């Protein structure tokens, strides 16, 4: 990937005015899809993504069911109006790949063995995209899974880091993704300290790789706090502590 113009100005600000360690504004709303068992809407910068979870429910076709565990099925889809030029609504090569990596990023957090012979369906619909939509999608899907009341070891938080103007920056946006040097999306289980997704597009030296990974994990931890707050707000309002009652 060759860079054609400067994406970081003299003051160290990026194309959208952020500093190199700054996350875009993240907003998560839980329970937006009424008919789903769990759902979440995430605004990750200009990304607007809806995630809905159905299940555990019966598996159709039946032969897909597994006797010892639950089947997790993910669908990542971009709406035709989510990009600059109309996107064909048929699932593209890219969407099929993201559906797969998303499933693999979420699976380690779920206790699928608790629901044998059932299926959990996760639908992630990108309504507006601005780079980093797979990370935002995983983040929203994880919140939706928790909202659906599925047993989880941990939430999954995801965030990207990358290389722009030979500098490692946090949370790559669309311009930086297209014109920058490298893009590394990472999904992370903050409590278990495990990485469940690590992709890299571009070239990095071993030193840059480590710096980039550390930065992305730092971003995941920030996203995790926002996820926690969103869930707490939906279920417990503004109270965070339960008032003790003398019995």
């Amino acid at each position: 990937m060759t860079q054609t113009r400067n994406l970081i100005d003299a003051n160290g600000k990026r194309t959208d005015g952020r500093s190199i360690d700054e996350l875009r504004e993240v907003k998560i709303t839980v329970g937006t899809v009424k008919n789903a068992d769990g759902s979440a809407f995430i605004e990750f910068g200009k990304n607007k993504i809806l995630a809905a979870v159905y299940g555990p429910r019966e598996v159709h076709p039946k032969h897909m069911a597994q006797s010892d565990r639950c089947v997790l099925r993910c669908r990542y889809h971009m709406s035709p109006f989510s990009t600059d030029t109309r996107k064909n609504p048929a699932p593209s090569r890219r969407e099929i790949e993201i559906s797969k990596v998303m499933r693999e990023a979420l699976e380690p957090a779920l206790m699928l063995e608790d629901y044998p012979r059932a299926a959990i369906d996760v639908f992630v619909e990108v309504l507006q995209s601005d780079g980093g939509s797979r990370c935002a999608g995983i983040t929203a899907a994880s919140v939706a899974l928790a909202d659906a009341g599925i047993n989880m070891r941990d939430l999954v938080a995801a965030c990207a880091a990358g290389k722009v103007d030979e500098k490692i920056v946090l949370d790559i946006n669309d311009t930086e993704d297209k014109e920058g040097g490298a893009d590394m999306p990472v999904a992370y289980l903050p409590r278990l300290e495990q990485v469940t997704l690590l992709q890299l597009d571009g070239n990095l030296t071993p030193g840059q790789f480590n710096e980039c990974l550390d930065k992305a994990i730092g971003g995941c931890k920030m996203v995790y706090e926002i996820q926690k707050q969103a869930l707490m707000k939906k279920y417990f309002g503004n109270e965070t502590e339960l008032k003790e009652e003398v019995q």
Partner: protein
Amino acid sequence: MKRRYVIPGDKIAEGNFRPLMNVIKTGNALIATRIGIAEIGRDGVKVIPLSGVYIPRVNDLVIGKIIDHSSLSWEVDINSCFSAHLPAQDVFGRDFSPARDDMTRHFGIGDMITARIMAFDRTRDPMLTVQDRDLGKIPRGESLKISATRVPRLIGKRGSMIQTIEQATQTRVLIGQNGIVVVTGRAPEGIKLALKAIKMVEEEAHTANLTQRIKVLLNVPDAPSETSRAPVGGAPKPEDSTIDEVEEELEVEGEK
């Protein structure tokens, strides 16, 4: 007893505790696996979930709908990812013969029944029984699905919430632990009002002063009623082991 709000991945406690419901132990830490209210009790640590679909458990009292029958059993929809089976032998007795006995005489497709889960494990679909007092066909009523996690709230502390609704609307409310509710009564207005109240309980289950607002909706004067309520078939009875948990859950919710 200590209680607090948790989300999946939260550490509830550290030390020598036993993990009970929705809690896993990793190393020395006890971790919540669901959104809910964590409780540290004498016998261990558990999380009372606030969301989720119904997963059958042995001895649960459920309300189901007959959706099909084979020559040996009925298939029952119990609002879960597994459809339950009611063996014909359970109804006709040991000497049941598919050639002689007409299964449709007892339950037809579309009938609602109250049943108890007799057996359920990871390998097979749940098995039901109707051989108990107050179990069997529900002849009439309006049915409604609510989330199974809201059932304890709908029953209320020692049945207070459901008692309020039943008395104010002159109806009988059967509640299955799978979240299916059947309302029966003479006056259609009463049934309508009861359904409205039940839906309100479901939507606002986690808010404070819900009983007060239900009373306002039902136009009940604010005086504590001490009349004991006879257990209705289908609704869990106080002597059931399951109801103990239910009541504990309610105490939690009552605090808020």
